[in-house]
């Protein structure tokens, strides 16, 4: 099972490689990828350095080109694919059908991964991408229970990658337009959810208020941990009850499921967080490397060590964790 780690910068990539990532995924510095944040990501020179460093250590680099090109920007997205092929990226992670068709036709040697943004939740969907474009790996949206993942794997020859740790989208990836409803930018079109430029913080007599595009997302009393106003993670009122109506800030953590994921044939585990610091990448990669190695050595006796759990908890959103959809009662 491969460990696939995030990098939003060259130091983060080195942290991932140095701490045991098998693959590092990254994006270019524009809206062709789903973490299009200011100050983040790679230009061509940084990409070359990333490839050199990772390949010198025998690791792979995956380029996420996983937003949906629109008519006026088509050439920007195809250039990203061409660049990946020219520079020797090990695989591209794509969501758009048209772009996959382009990549498969223009660069038949380039390995294709279906992005989580492609929203493929069944073997029927994944096998279509295989038939049409020869896709070799698919990343599953965070919506399936573990039994459903198992059934899916049994019915496809495409390698399956799942999310193991990090910020949790409660909505199906690629099926959420909440951000564009409020800010005009969505993950599908602009590679951004709840963009920072739309955020306003204001201290009021009723508490510290966070707004996104003018919409009140949360109000914190003194001493409360004030998290980023991702709009599905706000406190709202439903039938006179104010609560986290959609999702509490929490991180997905599936470390305890590792032996099961290995047994059912998951080929890769992905760590979320290209927007996070090199220190986060180092810490999470180190823990997961140790856990995967322990599981591989003896799956039957695998147990989450308290120090792993403590370390991951420190970097979890809202300091809390969930098994998400893998565990049915979450739904």
């Amino acid at each position, binding site marked *: 099972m491969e460990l696939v780690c995030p990098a939003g910068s060259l130091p983060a990539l080195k942290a991932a490689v140095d701490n045991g990532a098998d693959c590092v995924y990254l994006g270019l510095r524009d809206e062709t990828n789903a973490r299009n944040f200011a100050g983040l990501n790679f230009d061509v020179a940084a990409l070359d350095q990333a490839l050199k460093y990772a390949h010198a250590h025998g690791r792979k680099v995956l380029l996420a080109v996983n937003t*949906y*090109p*629109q*008519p*006026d920007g088509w050439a920007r997205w195809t250039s990203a694919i061409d660049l990946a092929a020219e520079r020797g990226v090990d695989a591209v992670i794509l969501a*758009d*059908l*048209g*772009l996959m*068709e382009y990549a498969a036709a223009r660069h038949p040697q380039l390995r294709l991964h279906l992005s989580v*943004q*492609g*929203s493929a*939740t*069944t073997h*029927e*969907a994944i*096998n*279509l*991408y295989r038939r049409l474009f020869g896709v070799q790996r698919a990343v599953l949206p*965070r*919506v399936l*229970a573990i039994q*459903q993942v198992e059934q899916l794997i049994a019915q496809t020859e495409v390698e399956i990658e799942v999310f193991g740790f990090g910020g949790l989208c*409660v*909505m*199906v990836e*690629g*099926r*959420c*337009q*909440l951000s*564009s*409803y*409020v800010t*005009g930018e969505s993950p*599908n*079109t602009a590679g951004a959810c709840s963009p920072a430029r739309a955020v306003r913080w204001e201290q009021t007599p009723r508490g510290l208020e966070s707004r996104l*595009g003018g*919409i*009140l*997302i*949360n109000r914190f009393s003194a001493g409360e941990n004030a998290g980023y106003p991702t709009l*599905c993670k*706000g*406190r*709202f*009122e*439903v*039938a006179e*009850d*104010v609560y986290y*109506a*959609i*999702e509490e800030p929490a991180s997905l953590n599936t470390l305890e499921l590792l032996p099961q994921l290995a047994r059912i044939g998951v080929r890769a585990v992905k760590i979320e967080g290209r927007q996070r610091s090199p220190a986060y990448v180092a810490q999470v990669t180190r823990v997961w490397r140790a856990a995967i190695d322990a599981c591989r050595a003896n799956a039957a006796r695998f147990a989450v060590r308290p120090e792993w759990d403590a370390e991951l908890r420190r970097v979890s959103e809202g300091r809390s964790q969930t098994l998400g*959809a893998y565990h*049915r*009662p*979450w*739904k």
Partner: protein
Amino acid sequence: MKLALGPVLYYWPRERLLAFYAEASSSPVDIVYLGEAVCSRRHEMRLADWLATARRLLEAGKEVVLCSQALVESESDLRALRRLADDNEFRVEANDMSAVSLLAGRVPFVAGPHLNVYNARTLALLVRLGATRWVPPVEISRAILTAIAAERPANLEIELFAYGRLPLAFSARCFTARHYNLQKDDCQFRCLDHPDGLPLRTSDGDRFLVLNGIQTQSARVYALLGEVGALADAGVDIARISPQAERTFDVVQAFHAALQGQRPAGASVRELAGLLPAEPCNGYWHGVSGLEMVA
């Protein structure tokens, strides 16, 4: 331009649905979309019921399309999808890639609003797989739609979501069940109590979203009646009206009157304003935040 009645996105009791479609059969809509697009637990209508309703609408002169579910998770979801795909009596609206996979190369289908189609190349590929009509994602703007429509393959129809609360997101998690502290698997079908969804407000009282089981909608009502001329110019062939709990057929009449040119568009827009269950919005069409209302 034709008028279509989108699928009922809420969970209504069977009698209410049957009465709604009886009214639809004598309304001036050309196309009716049937079926459960949101949640596999909803069972007031079985496939046989939908097919019987479809045949009645067909006899009344309507074109009928059956909708597939937007989020397909389980083997039983897939079985339901195969039954839909194998029924050659009516065209199917594909709302995820599993549906496209089952329909591709076999029968013509409608590429639904929950497929991610944002460029002409992707659209052309779906047409080669058998799509005969395209319903763009609700967030599409006039500029992008116009550019894609200019390159559209021959004989492909374009249908735009033109009225109703916007279906914005899907989740594995049920937010209605969550509100009642129930698990999805034991939701007690609380959606039945909310024929227009469960309203969600911000802490300062803004009507923001509507929870509809695993689907999240806008609280504001997308209303493009004032834009029907621009829709036609952009290449839209069909305007979709998404059913709301109240006065849907009055809205249909207002669109119909505007499309027939029976009334100046301004008069229809004023009439529509009195029919809306919430504030209107049209921002997506104008390329800005969806919740905005551009005059």
